[in-house]
């Protein structure tokens, strides 16, 4: 029997599609190149017990993959760098069953209505191809609600004055506010900003058979040992429980095979190195905004925009040293955020004019500290001072910080293509990332960084420091190091015009009738929000469109 769909990638995008398809009676195979540490191998309708509060395993030893020795990527800032300047880890999202959902701390904001009509509302920018999305907030709203209910999102209705309308309340109330966040929220409010409890896919109460979060603090970049984080384990277990989904982990899709305008199936490389062909009526590509264009290029799909407009969020990181302990190791890593730096104000509009730009936008600002001691230890110098610095702990116990997920504009030169010579362990060309921030991102960083530092000073900071990610390497002024945001977007842009976009408004490739991209590759702009909820929502919508 031919499968109804092959879903490539088991992250939030692929899982959302699997959930919709299996509920509608389709039979699907979910193909994942990484290992299964998420579902109980003896009963895939239940989560596993492989995750733990273990900094070595998750931060230092690639437990969630990809291991850059066997699945490297390459990086350069522009073609002027030559073929590459770096081989190894490049903005890796986990390569494991559950994908990026497993390591995220579960902040799942919706986009704002205006995010979908950026060109109409704000106008063009030099060097960038700013465009409206071929979908509106109102069209997505029911699917946003559906995904929020499935993964379980805690939030406070009405707390964010800039949010779009909601048909239904958040499924759960917010979890416990972190000690430091209570103080940074108060400081931000005194300066006229509008912080609010971060919409978070971590249970604040028992939900859907999974327990409430118990605040262990090993959240960002860790799998949840008690599965209080529902993204995407809730979607995957529900799909598996229908009996109509098969999970093929440690299985790499090396090529989508085509006949005319249709895909017939995919070529697989299995864990033992053997290969086989798998046929299906539909092929759903949800491998992330770096691996998805890589696979399409490996499959000889051609389009002038394919791989272009990579966006990663140019992050502004502002840290402050407090005269008191901040207890950042307790709680959900981030409990509060604010959107004021996306919306902007008279000061930011003046900064844009001063720089000769018609507008600038920053991004969502996360209120957080630093929790992990190995990471801290590597930041201090060795020798006799090390123990004392660890005990005093200026950059862990007494640190509070903001991370602004700065909106990257879509530049055609920021892109993913196939590296001309570097291979993965299976022998296939790896993805090469070409990326550097544009003037918009740098102007926004220069403007908003000091304003965030002012909030930390209002909170009591004795010192503040502003940095960016990617940061400035040895070469000088221009940020030139490898991105680490983990928010990959663009590269297989959606739109109505087949000349300027690769997929239609439902993620289907313009040139092929049964291949649908269901991840953040289709994003037209990057907004200032984490991509997870919106990519899962687009995937659910695309799947409903097919069944």
């Amino acid at each position, binding site marked *: 029997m031919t499968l109804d769909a092959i879903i490539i990638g088991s992250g939030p995008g692929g899982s959302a599609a699997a959930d919709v398809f299996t509920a509608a009676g389709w039979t699907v195979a979910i193909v994942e190149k990484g290992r299964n540490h998420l579902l109980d191998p003896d009963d895939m309708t239940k989560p596993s017990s492989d995750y733990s509060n273990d900094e070595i395993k998750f931060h230092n030893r690639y437990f969630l993959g990809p291991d850059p020795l*066997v699945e*490297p990527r390459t990086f350069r800032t522009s073609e002027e760098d030559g073929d590459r300047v770096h081989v190894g880890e490049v903005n890796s999202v986990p390569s494991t069953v559950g994908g990026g959902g497993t390591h995220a701390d579960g902040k799942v904001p919706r986009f704002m209505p205006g995010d979908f009509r950026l060109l109409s509302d704000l106008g063009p920018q030099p060097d960038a191809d700013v465009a409206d999305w071929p979908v509106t907030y109102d069209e997505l709203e029911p699917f946003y609600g559906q995904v929020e209910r499935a993964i379980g999102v805690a939030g406070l209705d009405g707390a964010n004055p800039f949010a779009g309308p909601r048909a239904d309340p958040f499924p759960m109330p917010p979890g416990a506010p*972190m000690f430091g966040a209570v103080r940074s929220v108060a400081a931000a409010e005194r300066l006229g900003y509008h912080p609010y409890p971060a919409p978070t896919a971590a249970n604040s109460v028992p939900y859907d058979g999974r327990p409430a979060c118990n605040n262990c603090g*090993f959240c960002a970049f860790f799998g949840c040992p008690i599965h209080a984080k529902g993204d995407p384990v809730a979607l995957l277990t529900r799909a598996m429980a229908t009996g109509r989904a098969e999970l093929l982990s440690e299985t790499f899709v090396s090529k989508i095979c085509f006949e005319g305008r249709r895909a017939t199936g995919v070529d697989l490389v299995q864990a033992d*190195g053997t290969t086989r062909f798998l046929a299906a009526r539909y092929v759903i590509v949800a491998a992330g905004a770096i691996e998805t264009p890589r696979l399409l290029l490996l499959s000889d799909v051609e389009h002038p925009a394919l791989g272009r407009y990579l966006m990663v969020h140019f992050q502004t990181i502002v840290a402050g040293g407090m005269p008191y302990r901040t207890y950042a190791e307790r709680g959900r890593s981030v409990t509060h955020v604010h959107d004021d730096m996306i919306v902007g104000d008279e000061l930011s509009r003046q900064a844009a004019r001063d720089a000769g730009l018609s507008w600038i936008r920053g991004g969502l600002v996360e209120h957080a500290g630093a929790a992990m*001691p190995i990471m801290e230890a590597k930041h201090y110098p*060795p020798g006799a001072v090390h123990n004392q610095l660890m005990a005093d702990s200026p950059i862990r*116990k007494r640190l509070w910080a903001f991370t602004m997920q700065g909106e990257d504009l879509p530049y055609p030169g920021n892109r993913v293509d196939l590296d001309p010579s570097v291979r993965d362990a299976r022998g296939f060309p790896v993805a090469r990332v070409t990326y550097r921030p544009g003037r918009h991102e740098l102007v926004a960083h220069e403007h908003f960084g000091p304003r965030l530092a002012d909030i930390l000073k209002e909170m009591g900071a004795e010192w503040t420091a502003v940095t960016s990610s990617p940061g400035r390497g040895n070469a000088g002024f221009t940020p030139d190091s490898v991105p680490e945001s983990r928010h990959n977007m663009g590269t297989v842009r959606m739109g109505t015009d087949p000349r300027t976009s690769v997929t239609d408004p439902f993620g289907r490739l313009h040139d092929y009738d049964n291949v649908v991209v269901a991840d953040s590759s289709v994003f037209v702009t990057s907004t200032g929000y984490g991509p997870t909820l919106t990519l899962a929502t687009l995937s659910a919508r695309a799947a409903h469109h097919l069944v």
Partner: protein
Amino acid sequence: MPTWLTEAEFEVLTAACDRTVPATAHGPGAVAAGVPDYIDGLLGAFTVDPPRIWARGPTSGRFGGEAAFASFHPLSPLDELAWRMRIEGSQGRPEAEFNGPVIGLQERYRSALAALGADFCAASSEVQDARLAAVDGFGQLLFHHCCEGLYGAPEYGGNREASAWAAIDFAGDVQPRGWTDAEVTEP
């Protein structure tokens, strides 16, 4: 008894760790915390089965639950290839040299410890510092492993009896207890 290094190499490693993060009034140094065992345990990860790479979950037993960290995850074929490349190097094996030869941690440590010299333990602090700085990249590698061996979970061989966590007032792996809402918001 070291599991992979020789006794003589282990002595030089111990002296190098002591120089990198010495004990002070603020906490145990790398040696008291067992960092040489952490490093030797990584270099000899494949002397045990499953290899000593990833401790299992979900709990260590320090805050309740089972002591699952005491055993290790089996590796997949791709995991094993990656970790053998990282530890043992590619050693001319075609399946490990798809992007060229890889020098492993075993070779880096063995050659660096030899370069530090058999008399390293008895040398003055100044001489030790100069020799550590003279081996390209080794000081940084050793320092990073000291940080992991000090502040990682004790099941990996370092952080003996969680002494380094105690010194910095870090509770460690708190599952399944976690923190109460009151401990989060108003500690």
